[in-house]
């Protein structure tokens, strides 16, 4: 009789060769994993630091605090303080008042001997008079008084304080001269000119090429919010209904297989194709207005639908069959089973999918360019529901738009807008996590 020889018992304290090899393999794998995570984190850090580094400046803007005398003779010659009458005074009049106020300061403190009034006025943003005018028209009793008003400095002066504009570049620049920058420096030393938080970046509409200092994201944020609300209201119910039907009711045959393949393909179709579709279907065929959030939202809905359907079906599919059997076993109908038992368990997955789909839609640029949302929009869209037909912009399109402009001040704006977009995405993703936690239940 031959017996397999049993190996001599070995001490547990010494690892044998196989164990050593296994442990080494495990160690190697851990190192690869850590390296992979580190590369990812590094990329994130580089991205964030570059975006934050160049974009945070957009949230701070150079402003001049000036005592402005609102001359009643110029602004309201008849003295009725009637806004309708006062509207006759144009921004030119207000511009003169502001320039006069600055000039008075400059002369009083003898900051720039010999500089002409026009040159002094160039330190101030061309957008400033409009803001002052709006304020006075809203509150006519200010006329005749002297108020301290923060006026935006021009983009070049702002760039000088942020390091974008230097004395050398100013010497070659027709919009600003080194002397003017020296004056700005002195005004800063006097404490009149300073960098302050800039709410206008979030509320102002876009501004023209020459006025980067007043360009803001107001219209774009509003447009993006309109679109996201419409996309959510359309894509979520349609997507969930389609998923439930496909997953629970549809017979499994060639036709539903075909639908399934197509849904998967649609999720992978480049977004610009949806833009072409939207242009053809909604604008050229259905005659909807260009640049409107409604059309943008419809295009984004089409794009988001498959991206909601796929995770929703996966979430429904992941509900254990024993739950369905239990419900059917006590005599629940199919619909009752789905709505009382399956859907509540799938909600976390559905919400996560929907919010990720929505976040993708929020950052989408290409399809919106094709339906004309790239236009320069200076007026806020109206209040919903009619407002969704007014022209508007969207945050990613605004970013694209600003990166196309010549003035480097817009690069800072674009990075600032990216920060805003990232904050929106962060909020949405956190919401997804919170909702998932809230609805997650054991089974």
């Amino acid at each position, binding site marked *: 009789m031959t017996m397999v020889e049993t190996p001599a018992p070995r001490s547990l304290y010494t690892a044998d060769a196989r164990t050593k090899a296994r442990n080494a393999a495990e160690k190697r794998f851990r190192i690869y994993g850590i390296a992979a995570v580190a590369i990812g984190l590094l990329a994130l850090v580089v991205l964030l630091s570059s975006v934050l580094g160049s974009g945070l400046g957009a949230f701070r803007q150079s402003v001049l605090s000036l005592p402005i005398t609102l001359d009643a003779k110029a602004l309201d010659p008849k003295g009725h303080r009637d806004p309708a009458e006062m509207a006759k005074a144009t921004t030119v009049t207000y511009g003169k008042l502001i320039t006069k106020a600055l000039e008075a300061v400059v002369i009083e403190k003898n900051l720039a001997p010999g500089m002409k009034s026009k040159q002094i006025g160039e330190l101030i943003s061309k957008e400033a008079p409009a803001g002052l005018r709006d304020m006075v028209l809203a509150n006519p009793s200010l006329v005749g008084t002297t108020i301290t008003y923060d006026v935006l400095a021009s983009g070049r002066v702002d760039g000088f304080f942020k390091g974008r504009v230097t004395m050398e570049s100013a010497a070659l620049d027709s919009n600003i001269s080194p002397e003017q920058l020296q004056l700005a420096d002195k005004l800063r030393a006097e404490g009149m000119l300073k960098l302050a938080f800039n709410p206008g970046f979030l509320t102002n509409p876009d501004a023209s090429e020459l006025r980067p200092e007043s360009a803001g994201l107001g219209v774009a944020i509003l447009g993006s919010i309109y679109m996201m609300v419409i996309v959510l209201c359309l894509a979520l119910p349609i997507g969930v209904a389609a998923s439930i039907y496909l997953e629970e009711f549809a017979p*499994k045959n060639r036709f539903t297989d075909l639908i399934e393949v197509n849904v998967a393909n649609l999720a992978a179709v480049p977004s610009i194709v949806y833009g072409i579709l939207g242009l053809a279907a909604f604008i050229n065929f259905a005659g909807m207005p260009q640049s409107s959030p409604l059309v943008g939202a419809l295009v984004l809905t089409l794009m988001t639908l498959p991206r909601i359907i796929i995770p929703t079906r996966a979430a429904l599919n992941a509900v*254990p069959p*024993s*739950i*369905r*059997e*239990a*419900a*059917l*076993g*006590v*005599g*629940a*109908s*199919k619909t*009752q089973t789905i709505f*009382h*038992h399956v859907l509540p*368990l799938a909600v976390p997955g559905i919400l996560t999918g929907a919010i990720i789909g929505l976040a993708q839609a929020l950052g989408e640029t290409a399809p919106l360019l094709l339906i004309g949302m790239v236009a320069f929009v200076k007026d806020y869209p109206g209040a919903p529901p009619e407002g969704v037909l007014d022209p508007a912009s969207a945050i990613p399109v605004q970013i694209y738009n600003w990166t196309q402009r010549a003035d480097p001040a817009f690069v800072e704006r674009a990075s600032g807008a990216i920060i805003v977009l990232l904050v929106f995405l962060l909020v949405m993703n956190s919401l997804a996590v919170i909702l998932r936690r809230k609805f997650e*239940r*054991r*089974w």
Partner: protein
Amino acid sequence: MNNMRLTERAVQATDTKITARKVQVHYGASHAIKDVDIDILDKTVTAFIGPSGCGKSTFLRCLNRMNDTIAICRVEGAILLDGEDIYDKKVDPVQLRARVGMVFQKPNPFPKSIYDNVAYGPKIHGLVRNKAELDEVVESALRKAALWNEVKDRLNAPGTGLSGGQQQRLCIARAVATSPEVLLMDEPCSALDPIATAQVEELIDELRANFSVVIVTHSMQQAARVSQRTAFFHLGNLVEFGETGQIFTNPRDPRTESYITGRIG
């Protein structure tokens, strides 16, 4: 098998509750149930025994059309409940399942509270008019399932938080709460300790007063203890069906004999 009190059981009922004739079940190409004819009596406990994979669960699931949910499953032949063909086109399986309840092999409580688990059936079938009645139904169902004392203080705790045996008794309570006419139980005691098993067996015996109970079990002792009639399945065939006493003491078929004496399984 002298401890089985076989002779004490008299079979009183003679009304047939379920009649099955020439039932065939296919899962795709595989033939799982072959030509089964059986008469399940009212107010009787019928046990299905047989080796693993012989088709006990499959046949049980035919009786309340749970097999409808399996796409590849095909059922042929006739199954009558009180003389009506349950596979008739006019029959809504939902209505059928309200009358033929089921307890599954693996405990599958809903991920809801204990109370809601039991209250769900009566609610969707409109068996109660108000909260007080519902409370009453829930309590009596939990009592019948021998679970009331353990959970009466935490009816709002999740049903999935109970132990395996408690979960199975919760599932029994859930099935009992809708007062079905026939209760199908697929190895209801496989996750239970001997005490809970005894309680469930007692419950089965009580249920017999009003319902017809069909129980699948791997425990010959259990079949002998609770059932009046026993069916022995083997490889998809119904080999032998008769009074429990006769099956266990005097099987006619050699396969039955070798199974109950432990030679096939």
